[in-house]
């Protein structure tokens, strides 16, 4: 691969995606909801399969059955949580039980969901026949996550950019393409200034400034993400994100929500156009090294409605 920037290309369109969503909706109704797992898998197969990098498309290998089993296990974990908290409430006292519930939920199930979902999705994605993988261990993540949550709470949110960067570093450093690891070299202090500025300006500008902060963070994160000798670069702008959001909102309003598929496609196209991979990386030499992963994290993500911190530009 030569040293010019490679941009992902998205070949999908709103019409096809709409067809998939409608079909999913009908089948979900008829099966009293069971079909959602297979429906979500279809959407991912389409979106990933229409995204190409250097001429070759991604492939998604997950199945609806895996998502369903993951959801069942996640339900089991939630039940366990409720039982444990309930036992604490009954045997010790009410306050302890409630505290235990929230502690286990936010410091246990949430990070588990984050990690598990990322691990599952990466393991089911391939490019040029090689699978991605995520090899971060849960215990190691907790060492980052729990102090981060505590410090953020104690500093009334000022620590948050540092926490966010630390999480991002953990997620990226432990992500692999075949045998090749991604690397993140960003620092919290680089983001802190912008974050404080955003906290001040966002309410003053009625929320408009937030788009500029999001664009900055997006550019910063991508430019500090590397694979082998190559590096990513993002050219999203605050104005671009704002315009994207406004037009999307307008589309949704005018079409009474039916235009959601087109909104999804527009957003993906925007992010693809503004992302590039530069540098003399020798990806042809990367070897296959797939890692097994179950879908319990995915199930938890659904149940807990967790927003995937550090999710790649699909945000699925």
């Amino acid at each position, binding site marked *: 691969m030569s040293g010019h920037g490679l941009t992902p290309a998205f070949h999908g369109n709103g019409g*096809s995606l709409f067809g998939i969503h409608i079909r999913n909706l009908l089948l979900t109704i008829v099966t009293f909801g069971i079909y959602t797992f297979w429906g979500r898998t279809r959407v991912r197969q389409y979106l990933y399969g229409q995204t190409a990098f250097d001429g070759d498309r991604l492939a998604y290998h997950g199945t609806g059955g895996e998502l369903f089993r993951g959801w069942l296990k996640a339900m089991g974990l939630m039940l366990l949580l409720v039982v444990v908290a309930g036992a604490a409430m009954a045997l010790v006292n009410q306050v302890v039980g409630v505290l235990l519930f929230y502690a286990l939920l936010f410091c246990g199930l949430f990070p588990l969901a984050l990690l598990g979902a990322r691990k599952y999705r990466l393991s089911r994605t391939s490019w040029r026949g090689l699978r991605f993988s995520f090899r971060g261990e849960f215990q190691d993540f907790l060492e980052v996550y729990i102090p981060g949550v505590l410090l953020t709470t104690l500093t009334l949110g000022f620590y948050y950019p540092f926490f966010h960067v630390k999480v991002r570093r953990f997620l990226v450093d432990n992500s692999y393409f075949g045998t090749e690891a991604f690397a993140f070299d960003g620092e919290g202090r680089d983001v802190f200034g912008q974050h404080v500025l955003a906290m001040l300006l966002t309410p003053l500008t009625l929320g408009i400034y937030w788009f500029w902060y999001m664009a900055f963070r997006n550019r910063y994160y991508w430019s500090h993400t590397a694979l082998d000798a190559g590096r990513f670069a993002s050219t999203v702008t605050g104005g671009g994100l704002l315009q994207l959001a406004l037009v999307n909102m307008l589309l949704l309003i005018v079409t009474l929500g039916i235009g959601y598929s087109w909104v999804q496609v527009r957003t993906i196209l925007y992010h693809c156009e503004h992302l590039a991979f530069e540098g003399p990386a020798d990806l042809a030499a*990367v070897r296959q090294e797939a890692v097994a992963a179950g879908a319990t994290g995915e199930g938890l993500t659904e149940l807990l409605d967790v927003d995937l911190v550090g999710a790649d530009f699909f945000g699925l």
Partner: protein
Amino acid sequence: MHSSPRTDWEGTYFDGRVAERHPVTVTLTAASLRIEWVDGKTILWSYGEIRQVQGARPGEPARLERGGDEPEVLVVDDPGILQAVREVAPHYRNRFTDASRRRTRTRAVVAGVTAAVVAAGAVYLWIIPLLAARVAARLPVTWEESLGRRVVAEMVDSAAICPHPAVLDRLVARLAATANGRYAFRVTVVGDSIVNAFAAPGGSVVVYRGLLELAETPEELAGVLAHEMQHVVLQHGTRAVLREIPLRLMVAAVTADAGFAGHVAGAAATLGSLRYGRQAEEEADREGMRMLQRARVDPRGMATFFGRLQERVGDVPRVAAYLSTHPRTEARIERLEGLAAAATYAAEPLMGAEAWEEIRAACAASGRPEPRSGL
């Protein structure tokens, strides 16, 4: 429309072990795909080992894989290769689908879903009511009677019940004699000035004093009683309960609600509303009229009474109680009048004037409060 069938395709091959792409040429033999490198190296993939991963939707290239954990991948931009494979190797047709089949599959899904919705509608509109009617006909009478007794106990305050003269029982018996004999009709008079009457499953008929006093002739009362008794004979209440149970269970299945007993109780509670559908009301009108005719009772009283109720709903708010559960329309009153006019038999009088006054005074005799003025 092609002049000569295509025999070779350009593709890209990945060996599943490193991320290197190899441009290849693909040709079809009778049993396998022949994949040839630029330098002449050739491998064969037999059709039975191939998995198609992409290519089933328009705009997708054909992506084929072979192998388990680290599969080899072959991507061909032109999905036409899939149809060609289906033609060359018909034994393996089912493994390869392209976008042209997609439209058929989509239509099949849409047709399937529509059929499911139509079937659900048919079950709801016809099959469940039919089953409810059949089951109701086979229910032991004692079950209906106990259901009816519970309804009456809910609706009627036992302290308000008035003793009534035997002549009222004889009136009910004269009407009941024309029915199929399955039910033993019992009448109860309640000392409440609202204008209402109803019959519960199993044969309990309840009449309120307000209605007794509003009726001017015994034929009018007989008309109301015949209508209510037909609701019992035709099992409208019982069928309504039996219809509701499967419907509520269907809803419970969809919403994953486990309270079975609650749903049965809820279904029975619909009886308390005493509301039957328009169809049931019209049927009770018609059959009630026939019941009067079989009993040789002058049928005009029924139409007259309902007509009077309709007129007086504004003056007498308590009349609304009856009308709310027995909606009347001009059309229905006219139909009743038409049926009455068509009767050609000689009616036999129900009772003498003193007996009628006895009935009307049923509750007054036991010291019940006088009706408020304005009735």
